[in-house]
């Protein structure tokens, strides 16, 4: 793995943690996604985009007292008519998808730009 990719991973992980904990807008996940978009290999870009978004926003639940969080999740799940686990996973999943899609989008744009430059 090259140095740039490692830096990209670290920066995007940090931004994911900061944005998903402190902000109220899920689309802030686009920013780490854009950074991940600079990874050249498409598969690495997409997998890491999804995993960083999903895993590190999921990790943030550890900021709360887990036993009480689990009890609260069960109650709210019951209220929403959904299994509690869905409530906890759905947001990280969407976060992962946002990072994946923004990384993918940027990656494809960069690929097209590079192709056009090489044609010229």
């Amino acid at each position, binding site marked *: 793995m090259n140095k740039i990719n490692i830096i990209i991973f670290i920066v995007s992980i940090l931004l994911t943690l900061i944005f*998903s*904990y*402190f*902000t*109220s*807008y*899920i*689309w802030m*996940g*686009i920013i780490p996604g854009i950074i991940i978009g600079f990874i050249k290999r498409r598969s690495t870009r997409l997998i890491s985009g999804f995993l960083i978004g999903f895993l590190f*926003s*999921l990790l*943030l*639940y550890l*900021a*709360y*007292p887990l036993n*009480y*969080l689990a*009890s*609260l999740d*069960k*109650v*709210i799940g*019951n*209220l929403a*008519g959904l299994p509690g686990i869905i*409530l*906890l996973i*759905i*947001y*990280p999943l*969407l*976060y992962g*998808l*946002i990072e*994946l*899609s*923004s990384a*993918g*989008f940027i990656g*494809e*744009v960069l*690929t*097209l730009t590079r*192709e056009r430059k090489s044609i010229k």
Partner: protein
Amino acid sequence: MGKKSYILIVVFLIILIIASYLGQIFFVFSPSKQSIWPYSYTAQLKNQTIYLKGLKSPVKIIISKDGVAHIIANDTYDAYFAEGYYTAYMRLFQLELFGLTGAGNLSSWFGNLTLKTDLYAHYVGFPQNANFTLNYVKTHYPVIYSYMQAYSDGINAYIVNAEKQHELPFIFYLLNIKPYNFTPFYSIAWGEVMSWGLAKGFCDELKLTLIYTHLGYNLTNELLPYYPYYTNGSLTAMPGNGTVNGLNLQSFNVSPSYFWSLNFYDTFANGLNNKTLSEITPLVVSALNQICSDPISIVDLGSNEWEITGNYSYTGYPMMANDPHLTLYDPSLWLPLQMIAPNLNVTGFELVGEPGVLIGHTKYTAWGLTTPLGASSNAYLEIINMQNYSYLYNGVWYPLRKYTFNLLNKNFTIYYTNNGPLITFNNTLHLGISLYWVNQYYPFLTLVSEFLLDNSTNFEQLLNAAKYWVEPTQNLAMVSMHHAGFITAGLYPLIKINLPNNITVKVIGARTVLNGSISNYEPVGYVPFKYLPQSIDPSRGFIFAPNQPTAYLDYPFPFVGGYWVSDGRALTIYRYLNSHKMITINEMESLQGNVTDAWASILNPVIVSCLKNQSYSGIFREGVSILSNWNYTFYQNEIAPTIYTYMLFNILDNVLNPIIDQHGLNQYRPLLTGTVAFYGTDNLITSDIAYFASHNPSSSLFNGSFCKIVNTSYVQSINYLTQKLGYNISNWNWGKVHVLELQNPAGISSLNYGPIPIWGDGFTPSAAYFNFNGTIYMPLIVSEGPSLRIVDSPSTDQFYAVFPGGPSENPASPWFETQLNAWLNFEYYPFSPITNITAIWYLLPEGGS
């Protein structure tokens, strides 16, 4: 290559838009600190130091393992401030919900869903009355007002902190609503709601009008007598013939036997003839639907209390027990706490939303409350003209007063006559029904009374506090170091009626709607404090007031509007207290946990003797054998209560259905619930059945034969139970068909607790009420019962209590149902000394150290 990239760009863009859109919808469930999850921090109670703006000096709150908060302050204002802060920490959503209910403004949170409830609140007058009281207390009781303000300030201080930390109860985020700034207005308005929930008169008069106009006097009086059949001068709350401080009915030259033989549905008692009463049926039904269908459903009726004098107690000192029966909410309506400040040391239960302790004790006194069920509101028939908005009074037309309010950007208007708001009117008939209620005319000084109780140090001060009590009228149980007693505290409006023998008597309430277009039936004052039903240090050594008639036939201000429950609990309690001396604290607790049904003890032997004359086999025979060996207790593992209860349902249906059908009351069935109606939780009909079954089994009520009714009902009930529970009778446990469900106060059923098997029924001292409306069903859901239990003896420093819940409203918290199991198992917690400390909070003035 390029084409693929273009396609991918489009796909990624679509995913991005959809995920962003869905993500915003599900944002409340995100791990963000702006989500609902920071609320999980409040589930745990830990030591903390909190700096609060508005606090004058440091306050310490010690929270014990059983969920009782001990608030220790250097200043009374700070004690109330800390109470408000603690209450908000534990119950913010409930507090705000109750306040908004009283303010008649739930629709600002819930929109059209709660518009009907808000209109109801304005019709009865909660916000209007609250404003009236607020101004009065502010002017006349500025110190007490400052404590009410301190309580609100404490609540608001918590709101500021919780908003900052994003730790508001999750329901605020889920419903996308914001807490409002709490003020004393909301405390008073919520007090109005509770007060109305326990007030009697208006709805009972409407129901009785409906029943009387369809059944006539004889049948109405047979089914719903002025006093339940088993009442006598020993069973009334005030023992004796009704004489109070030397005054009785005979003092006004009226013989009690003459008085109570009269037909109080007649013109002399209400100013209306039978024809008019019949013609206004549509109005009566409309008023019942408007006001008496109870959309708020906060409180119901019931409660036990008894006091033992020193010479009848084991310790030689007075004791008391109290368990108010209310809707069992989760979280509870109550919050246990102690408040200590210079000249204040009170422990007990705060009614959430009301500052101070409503039921509790000081070092020297203790008090409790039950409902006396006499009329403090009345229904008036008004002659109106809605073309020019006027009403007729004593032959003169007066303009209707207008009250306009706005909900959901729509204006609503309520019209008032001199008697109160017009609950309903009919333009064609030019008639309307208005509501008179004490709280419309008299400030709600019950709050003042509560502050005085919390500061009481002797019996005289308890009695003095009772003088300020307004509504709801309550049997105030009181004990001090050396005295025990009760008084029916509150304002009973008196109506002057001219008896057929031309003697005028002032009575409480009515049996029907009253004529509002003349002054004759207007309230002419209240029962003087000296002559309220009361009993202090009685020679028989005990006083008890579990909603039975408060005073007997010779009471000087007769309860024509006395809508008593069946006497079932009173009988069991009386039988025990009358046969025991040297009563201990443990015996007091056991009596609170008694699950014997007095009506079963009277009815079941008659039933069994009927059934034994039949030649049953198989499961039918087994059922008779179980009933024969039953001792009338209602424990979860017993089978007899199941058979008895379902048989009683069938007996009630077999007796009532022909009457209801024959007299055209079928269409009004849903309105006929209540103590003086046919259905409900603890009404007179069951005691009627017990009385007639044992005294006149060939009564026309039973179509000539009670045994015939019993046999039919028995077969019906065994068939029903077999169909529902199978042929193995050993599986027919009471706990299987009779279950407790603690209700969420916001009506969110998925947040209810239960169902779990529960003891008791509607007539056992440890009551577990279910509703019966004529339709036989299973399981029987219990949602009302002892909302707390206390047993106190100030002289021996013994104060025990338990309630079905915990301090916290956070369902994830271990403090949500702290005391529930103890309550279910009839166990108690001592209020003091403070042991097993869970957390200590230090509340410090902002800028202090």
